[in-house]
């Protein structure tokens, strides 16, 4: 039932509107709204009950194992939420003067420093509001760099075929063409193909390492050398840093610019789709172009640097300073981790992924890169199961839901057939991993014995498998009252 169906004319949540008399004096009649929008008219109880019950229909980290590869669904410490919501921080106006901002700004400044340290970059801007916006900022800086040097013939950004969709989309938003580079069967970038693709038209390359194939690109130093020699810059898609925190740093690998998804590695909540935060870090030569605002510290006071102090900036990416409340959560998280905790993240995310991969392989499933170490994630290919049993990766995924386990990422990266990109994360206990293996084995047994159980899944959720084709064909994007 939709909230609109609870609605009755004149009903309302009494306590939720100002009691004082108010008027619209001075606003000309022709600018005043003539008919009320059809928002729900419900009591507070009805709204609370409706949304509480809706929430119960979700899977979430707080309720299920959620090994969604590349999405890093790890535990979001509850303190991050409550501390970012302390009144002085929650109520701070974005344009409050520095006199009333030292607490907030000091946290932001320290977060910049922490991110510099973990990535090995020379400077950091916190302003991008998610990974994709961080990518935008990064590629825009690459462009600004070339432009500033008068090097305007560079029109291409190279992207491995396994890359996240945001990478090529970003290149295009920045006015570049995206050119794909193939991956070898062992998961590493095809260096020969790279060699061929590089040239004076190359503005840069976007890589992620560990890659979205769940393996560490071993030839990264060579790649960096090749790209730099061609006059291009290296972009690091740092959506998932779990596997490398304290182990290896993008700056040391030769990258010029990086974005990080704080809503992944730094455990800020995903909130059913966001908000995120996608700070960017750069090497010295890209520093002038960082998006504003930045936070500076002069030994006494913290303050924002804007277009005025940073004339070469690519500009601003949001009306204010990005997703500040998310940045605060990441700050709290980083402070709780500390040096040792950062390393623990890498160790345990890698341990969990390798353990889970090993157990699945032992149980007879096929790893896409069986010779390789898993990083924080790894890929299973279910093509054998699809062929022999007629159940697809999608069927496995849906059936896992019936076992009260969220499905891994399916059909991404596209180059691996019937693939499961599995990321257990460091906050899960061994028993959760074992339960996943057990469920996978059971589902395979079901597929052998009673394939309809798997193909018709899920059975135990609020709805059964949904008709996506109809959704796209008979577009129904908003509720209309009957009649």
């Amino acid at each position: 039932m939709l909230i609109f169906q609870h609605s009755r004319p004149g009903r309302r949540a009494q306590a939720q509107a100002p009691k004082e008399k108010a008027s619209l004096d001075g606003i000309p009649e022709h600018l005043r709204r003539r008919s009320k929008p059809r928002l729900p008219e419900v009591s507070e109880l009805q709204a609370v009950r409706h949304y509480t019950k809706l929430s119960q229909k979700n899977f979430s980290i707080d309720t299920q194992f959620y090994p969604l590869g590349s999405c890093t669904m790890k535990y979001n410490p509850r303190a991050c939420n409550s501390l970012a919501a302390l009144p002085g921080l929650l109520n701070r106006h974005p344009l409050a003067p520095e006199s009333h901002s030292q607490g907030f700004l000091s946290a932001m400044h320290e977060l910049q420093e922490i991110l510099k340290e973990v990535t090995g970059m020379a400077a950091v801007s916190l302003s991008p509001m998610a990974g994709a916006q961080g990518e935008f900022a990064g590629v825009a800086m690459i462009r600004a760099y070339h432009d500033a040097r008068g090097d305007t013939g560079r029109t291409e950004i190279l992207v491995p075929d396994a890359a996240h969709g945001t990478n090529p989309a970003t290149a295009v938003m920045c006015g570049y063409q995206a050119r794909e580079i193939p991956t070898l069967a062992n998961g590493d970038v095809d260096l020969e193909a790279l060699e061929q693709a590089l040239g004076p038209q190359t503005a840069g390359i976007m890589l992620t390492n560990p890659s979205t194939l769940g393996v560490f690109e071993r030839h990264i130093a060579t790649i960096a050398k090749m790209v730099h020699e061609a006059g291009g810059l290296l972009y690091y898609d740092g959506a998932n840093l779990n596997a490398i925190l304290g182990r290896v740093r993008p700056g040391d690998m030769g990258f010029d610019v990086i974005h990080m998804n704080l809503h992944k590695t730094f455990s800020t909540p995903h909130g059913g789709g966001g908000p995120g935060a996608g700070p960017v870090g750069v090497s010295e030569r890209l520093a002038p172009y960082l998006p504003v605002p930045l936070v500076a510290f002069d030994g006494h006071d913290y303050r924002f640097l804007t277009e005025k102090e940073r004339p070469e900036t690519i500009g601003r990416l949001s009306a204010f300073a990005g997703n500040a409340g998310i940045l605060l959560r990441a700050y709290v998280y980083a402070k709780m981790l500390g040096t040792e905790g950062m390393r623990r993240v890498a160790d345990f995310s890698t341990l969990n992924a390798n353990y889970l991969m090993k157990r699945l392989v032992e149980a007879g499933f096929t790893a896409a890169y069986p010779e390789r170490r898993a990083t924080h994630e790894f890929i299973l290919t279910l093509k054998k199961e699809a062929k022999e049993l007629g159940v697809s990766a999608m069927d496995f995924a849906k059936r896992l839901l019936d076992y009260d386990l969220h499905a891994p990422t399916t059909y991404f990266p596209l180059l691996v057939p019937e693939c499961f990109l599995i990321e257990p994360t460091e906050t899960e206990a061994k028993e959760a991993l074992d339960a996943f293996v057990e469920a996978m084995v059971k589902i395979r047994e079901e597929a052998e014995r009673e394939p309809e159980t798997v193909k018709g899944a899920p059975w135990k959720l609020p709805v059964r498998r949904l008709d996506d084709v109809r959704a796209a064909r008979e577009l129904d994007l908003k509720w209309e009252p009957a009649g």
Partner: protein
Amino acid sequence: MLSAIGVTSIDELFDEIPDELRAAPLEGIGPGLSEMEIDRLMQEKARQDGQPICFIGAGAYDHHVPAAVWQIATRGEFYTAYTPYQAEASQGTLQLLYEYQTMMAELMAMEVSNASLYDGASALAEAVLMAVRANRKSKSKRILVPRSLHPAYRATVHTLVRNQGIELVELPFDAATGQTDLAILEAHAGEDFAALVIPQPNFFGVLEPVDEMADFARKNGLLSIAVVNPLAMAVLVPPGEWGAEGVDIACGDGQPLGAPLSSGGPYFGFLCCRQKYVRQMPGRLIGRTVDLDGKEGFTLTLQAREQHIRRSKATSNICTNQGLMVTAATIHMALLGAEGLAQTAAACHTNLDRLVEKLTNLGEIEPRFSGPVFHETVLKLPMEVPGVLRTLAAHNILGGYDLQQDYPELENCLLVCATETRTGEDLDKYATSLQRVLASRRQGACATMVRFDP
């Protein structure tokens, strides 16, 4: 677990990392804090920022948010879920987003709403990109943008669209009314532009001649893009009803619908459009459909617009959006309803009226513009604004926004706002303090940078 994997140490798991790349310990970070310790630290920081009485608006507004909103939005099932890729395991989020799309379309009187973008400024940039793609009648990449639009929005749009060769052409405002100058707009008739941006209210709180502007766009083959304060739309004519046929795209920042000020974010951008442009929309869309048993359900739809399917041909690179803020906004709108939103909007407006009366009664202060305003306005002070604001801040009052930093032509102009959360006492305190400031500054006292002492 190590032995199950067949290694003897965790270090072995990292053996594919070339030796020369291995990181030294991250010394700069310091030891991890316990929750109790970080609690203390954050308390201290929060205390430092105090809780001043705020009369700044300028795109972010201090509204009351019902306690239920965030108590529900932070339930683990909403707070810690991912983007609803597995629809069957995400019906909570999906149905809520479908409700949100309905509410937002209603509030804007538009046909379709997406499920959110980052914030108002970047939503406008996406609207501009969308307009350029969608406008089949125009070959131009030029956009008409009023100077009365929020300066940070103009800057953000510039950052986000210029690499695709899109150019923003400024429309000046009438120095007397504060509204976009229609005569100058009309002078552009016949030129090729992709779109016209129409803010309501504009950055000065002034109400624009939206009907005329929308009609101008329609007649001249431009797509019209409204940028509005969603709370204002509870009492003002919504974009879908501007001019003869409404606008093509409406966007803005959803902050006034349940998002705390929180230093500027997370808020959320909303974007609505005509049904016929839906395939050009950026961002996620939720559709209602049925399951195998014919039961109603909700799912992500038209994903072929998005980067994870269409990659370099997507309508935008956006992936993660502002889901949780939309969750809050949906609950917020359900709790307030049309009536509650309208009452809140009117209360803000009335509070501003009262404030302006109190301040102009001081004798030396005047409204700068003659155009009608909603909920925020520009005052002209008898002296430079920065010094006044600093002294007010020392009294724990944030007196407004200094307009001269963005508009050199608006000398000594202050943008002020008083939402429904400001009490009569707050207004009095502002008036009294300002009176004192004016008096003492007339006597030549010199303002220094004050460090607020909480």
